[in-house]
């Protein structure tokens, strides 16, 4: 975490800004944080504010705009120039690709949102890289654990750390919520989602600058998976409780129906909002506290402001490590709770 704060702080002079003018006002820091929270098409570790050189590497851009168009994001020159591909012109504006004319004009509406056409963007963005990395890591670690069982019943080495986690998810999350008989079917989803979210959350705490689970599209996708699994595994009782609640008078049944349908939809909504908001808030707070180093320099001097910022950031970062686990746990827990509600055999009361 310590190195993380330092790298973040040192990469504070980054992006968008003109040469020789480091980010040092409140508005600039705010804009920088907002930029970090968004997905990006290239990987930048450090930008030299004096010369405006970015140190990092570009990522491939894949657009669907009447046909697949692929090119490297270096063509955008970090949003400074227009990329011309197959007769169409594209420009980056606040991390998003817009279709423009040859000059790269972007027209804004009243809310400062561009009115330009947006091509469908299937690029390998930073978040996609993060996801691929997490997926690969999981495959490597857990297939090693699986192979370890061929040698003997007790795993060795790092697999010893992983095995209790798998057992934890199985015994503390899946079994009590879904039930002894049916939990096995959902273990693949629950385990994958748990470790996927956890690894991505932790990846967000490294100085690499990932913010995958703080992306609304990612959490929407995760929550939709849970939503569809719950709906497809719902038994007759489940649907009966939604559309024709047993044991209450008919007028009540009619009133309860829309409420229950709404409840069906708010469950995944709260799942996606919770994960998104927690991670976004965590990143925001950590980066704001790092920003304090620059903002408080005038009042406390370089050493004082750095010290204050360091202690606060360290404290919040430790909490964020806990939150990283807690959010993965909560997501998996609630998913299995919803699945358990859908497959439960009700005793008739």
């Amino acid at each position, binding site marked *: 975490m310590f190195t993380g704060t330092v790298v973040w702080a040192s990469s504070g002079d980054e992006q968008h800004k003109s040469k020789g003018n480091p980010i040092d006002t409140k508005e600039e820091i705010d804009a920088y944080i907002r930029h970090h929270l968004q997905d990006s098409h290239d990987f930048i570790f450090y930008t030299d504010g004096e010369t405006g050189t970015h140190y990092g590497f570009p990522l491939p851009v894949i657009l669907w705009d009447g046909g697949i168009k692929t090119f490297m994001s270096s063509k955008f020159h970090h949003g400074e120039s227009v990329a011309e591909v197959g007769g169409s012109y594209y420009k980056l504006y606040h991390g998003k690709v817009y279709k423009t004319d040859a000059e790269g004009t972007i027209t804004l509406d009243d809310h400062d949102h561009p009115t330009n056409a947006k091509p469908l963007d299937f690029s390998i963005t930073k978040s996609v890289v993060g996801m691929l990395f997490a997926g690969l890591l999981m495959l490597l670690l*857990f297939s090693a654990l699986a192979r370890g069982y061929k040698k003997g019943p007790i795993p060795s080495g790092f697999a010893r750390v992983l095995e209790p986690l798998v057992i934890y998810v199985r015994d503390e999350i899946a079994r009590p919520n879904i039930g002894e008989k049916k939990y096995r079917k959902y273990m693949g989803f629950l385990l994958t989602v748990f470790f996927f979210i956890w690894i991505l959350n932790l990846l967000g705490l490294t100085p690499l600058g990932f913010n995958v689970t703080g992306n609304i*599209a990612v959490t929407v996708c*995760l929550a939709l998976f849970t939503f569809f699994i719950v709906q497809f595994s719902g038994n007759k009782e489940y649907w009966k409780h939604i559309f024709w609640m047993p044991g209450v008078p008919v007028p009540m049944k009619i009133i309860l129906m829309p409420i229950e349908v709404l409840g069906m939809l708010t469950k995944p909504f709260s799942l996606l909002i919770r994960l998104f908001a927690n991670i976004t808030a965590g990143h925001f707070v950590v980066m704001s506290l790092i920003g304090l180093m620059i903002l408080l320099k005038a009042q406390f001097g370089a050493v004082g402001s750095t010290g204050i910022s360091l202690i606060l950031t360290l404290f919040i970062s430790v909490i964020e490590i806990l939150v990283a686990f807690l959010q993965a746990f909560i997501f998996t827990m609630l998913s299995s709770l919803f699945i358990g509600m859908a497959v439960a055999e009700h005793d008739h009361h």
Partner: protein
Amino acid sequence: MDQLLNDFSPGLFFMQAIILLILILLMRKFAWKPILNSLQDREDGIQGALDAAAEAKKEMQNLQADNERILNEARAERDSMLKEAKELKENMITDAKVEAQAEADKIVAKAQATIASEKKAAIADLKNQVAGLSVEIAEKVVRKELSGKDKQLELVETMLEDVTLN
């Protein structure tokens, strides 16, 4: 909300859906299934071993009880055998005693009978001898002494006295 909808990237959503789907399938095939199966196997194995140990303990207890029972039986058998032998011995002793007594009685009876018959015979013999002697004496006396009547009578009388003494 507005801001969020604007931030929502359909492309990223699509990529995430594909990656997650593939990841779930791959992990299920290559990791979760073998891991969960191995865990299940191991837990079943442990349960089986525990059950087997409990079973063995029970068996052991049974065996011990069996041993105890056999030992008791053996002990009882030995006791009864000892008792029998003792009885046999006593019987034999009493039998022998009785037999010996009978034999002894028989011998004594025989001896008495013999003694009696011997005595009888002896007495008869003696009588015969006495009679013979008496006749001889009488002859001698009669020849010598039967000169006087008085002397004859005296003799008869003393002789008679002697005879009755026997």
